[in-house]
């Protein structure tokens, strides 16, 4: 993460967007990480329904929880960028923004569904089915900018490759790797904490 920040501020050149472009190196990797977390949550939900993997439900829940955190950061950093670039915090006519918001709210509702049911196989199954439905929204959200007729939102990647200099692309890749590593670390720590919590509960019940 330190290397990514150093590259962003001391190596990557400024483009026509000026200093504001520095937000891109955090905003886009955070958005990609949110997609990755939702995708991983969907994969674990599928494993739960298909193979009945023990613990897949908890893994799916933790991944979606992280996806929501990264999703919220995507919306906030994007809004800060837009406020300077477009002069307002949000653009309702921009398909990609609205679809990302829909995806984010869809996964926020996942927690409402999950905690409205008592713990057990029913809750795990319902949560897994819901998480899988959300996965369908990910490609729609990613491809929305290509489907859209309006191109207010900048396009960093298109069919011809990247719309940036090699040094900018290198910095972006390092920032993306840093963000994915951070998410993987958070995932492992949160999952270990939740598993330990469950084990301790079992132990307390056995001792009392």
């Amino acid at each position, binding site marked *: 993460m330190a290397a990514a920040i150093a590259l962003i501020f001391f190596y990557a050149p400024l483009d026509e967007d*000026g*200093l*504001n472009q*520095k*937000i891109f190196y*955090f*905003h886009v990797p*955070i958005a990609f990480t949110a997609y990755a977390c939702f995708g991983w949550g969907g994969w674990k939900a599928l494993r739960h329904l298909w193979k009945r993997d023990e613990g897949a439900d908890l893994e799916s829940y933790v991944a979606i929880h992280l996806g929501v*955190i990264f999703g*919220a*950061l995507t919306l*906030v*950093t994007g809004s*800060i*960028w837009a*406020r*300077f670039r477009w002069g307002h915090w949000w653009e309702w006519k921009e398909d990609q923004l609205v679809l990302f918001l829909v995806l984010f709210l869809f996964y926020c509702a996942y927690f409402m569904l999950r905690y409205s049911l008592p713990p057990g196989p029913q809750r795990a199954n319902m949560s897994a089915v819901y998480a899988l439905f959300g996965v369908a929204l990910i490609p729609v959200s990613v491809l929305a900018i290509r489907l859209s007729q309006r191109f207010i939102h900048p396009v960093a990647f298109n069919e011809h490759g990247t719309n940036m200099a090699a040094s900018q692309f290198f910095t972006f890749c390092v920032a993306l790797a840093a963000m994915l590593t*951070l998410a993987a670390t*958070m995932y492992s*720590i*949160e999952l270990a*904490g939740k598993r*330990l*919590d469950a084990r*301790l509960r079992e*132990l*307390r019940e056995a*001792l*009392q």
Partner: protein
Amino acid sequence: MSTEGKYVAAAYLVVFVVLLAYVLIIALKLQRLAQEVAELVELAQKKQRDPERKAVAVG
């Protein structure tokens, strides 16, 4: 600092604050788990020292 610089600083600050809050929440949770482990160890030791006594009729 320029207006542009303020927006960039705000964006990075938001990410930093959210991550810091997450780390603090996890740290508090770990503290609670450590406390719970200590309680359970104490409970297990107590059970080991003082096994259940059978009820004996007196009088």
